[in-house]
């Protein structure tokens, strides 16, 4: 690995916005990228604190997102409140099992995976361990890639609400769960964006 030079060893910085290779100076305060004008940082600013804060906030919203119903359907006087999980079950029984699996993956598996993966990445990067660096780097890219698919159920509720406005026979109403769910998705996306994957490689071993 030592044959591959890293930017800080060569006194270089890659601009976070446009990717230009810039020269590192000891006093980086106020330095900007000569090409795009973005502020230059060796690592994303306050990556650990920011990512933890956003992740914990997301988790606090995730609990009501799952416990509270996201949608109410009224049909022939029958009132039926659906949570995310009961909506998946209904889809499994009445509609198509394959779509039920997709919704389950997008709204339950993906957010849970994000919470676990981001915590693992934060803790291991904080300890500066060289353990499974390549796998951790891949895990981070996976989390970034799949993150926004969790919006799926939010859009489903929105569309159903707009469609079923008959009033006489049936009615679909969005309930607070869907708001919490949308906020969870946004916060987890912000969390994975504020994490700096370079931290995975800043291990004690590589420095010594």
């Amino acid at each position: 690995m030592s044959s591959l030079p890293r930017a800080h060893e060569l006194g270089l910085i890659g601009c976070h916005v446009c990717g230009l290779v810039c020269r590192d100076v000891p006093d980086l305060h106020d330095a900007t990228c000569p090409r795009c004008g973005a502020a230059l940082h060796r690592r994303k600013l306050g990556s650990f604190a920011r990512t933890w804060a956003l992740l914990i906030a997301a988790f606090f919203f995730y609990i009501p997102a799952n416990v509270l119903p996201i949608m109410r359907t009224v049909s022939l006087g029958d009132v039926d409140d659906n949570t995310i999980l009961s909506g998946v079950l209904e889809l499994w029984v009445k509609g198509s099992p394959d779509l039920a699996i997709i919704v389950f993956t997008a709204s339950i598996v993906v957010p849970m995976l994000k919470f676990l993966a981001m915590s693992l990445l934060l803790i291991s990067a904080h300890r500066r361990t060289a353990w499974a660096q390549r796998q951790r780097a891949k895990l981070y890219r996976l989390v970034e890639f799949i993150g926004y698919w969790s919006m799926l159920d939010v859009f489903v509720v929105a569309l159903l609400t707009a469609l079923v406005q008959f009033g006489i026979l049936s009615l679909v109403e969005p309930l607070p769960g869907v708001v919490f769910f949308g906020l969870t998705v946004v916060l987890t996306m912000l969390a994975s964006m504020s994490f700096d994957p370079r931290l995975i490689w800043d291990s004690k071993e590589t420095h010594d």
Partner: protein
Amino acid sequence: MNAPQQALNGKEANNLMICEHCDTVYRRRELARGETARCLRCDAVLERHQRIGTNGMLALVLTAMVVFIQANIWPIVTLGLNGQEISTTLWGTIIMMWNDHSQVVSILAAATLFFFPLAKMLTLGWVLFFARRGERAPGFATAMTILHYVGPWTMNEVFVLGALVAIVKAHVYFDVLPNPGIFAYAVLMLLITIFASVDMRRLWDLTEAPPA
């Protein structure tokens, strides 16, 4: 501003490239057709060979804009019940969520399905229109920064899948017909996937700064 201190000389800077995921420094080389350069340390994609030129990209953006208008005007789904029919467009959905006391969801949908994709297409079109002639558009740096930040917040492809799920769910109670809007959306999804695979940063290399 101590920019001059920061700049490497042009040639040096253009020959080097830093992996965004692990900070490894590489010397750039020409990529062959269909080739992808990957980071040896972390396996992230460093650069892809670009098949589509700036003219092609501009054509794609213009097509996407036309499809985008259709996807927003045409109804997405129609419900039929006892001879009554009702349909909704994207904006019908957004307005309905607003009136149903789910303003947060309404704003999220409007931003990720309408405003951000629109901003992305307009900015990209503006930049490409000038890049075709090797020029940097007025406000180039700002435009490129906008593209960098807006990128992850467009969710049209998620919406297509969401519409599919909504159709199946509503099918339990109603006759459901997919409308042209959903097909326009599917095409838009394809076009957006193509944009996503193109590294816009190369526009910095393809264009020249106007003489100061």
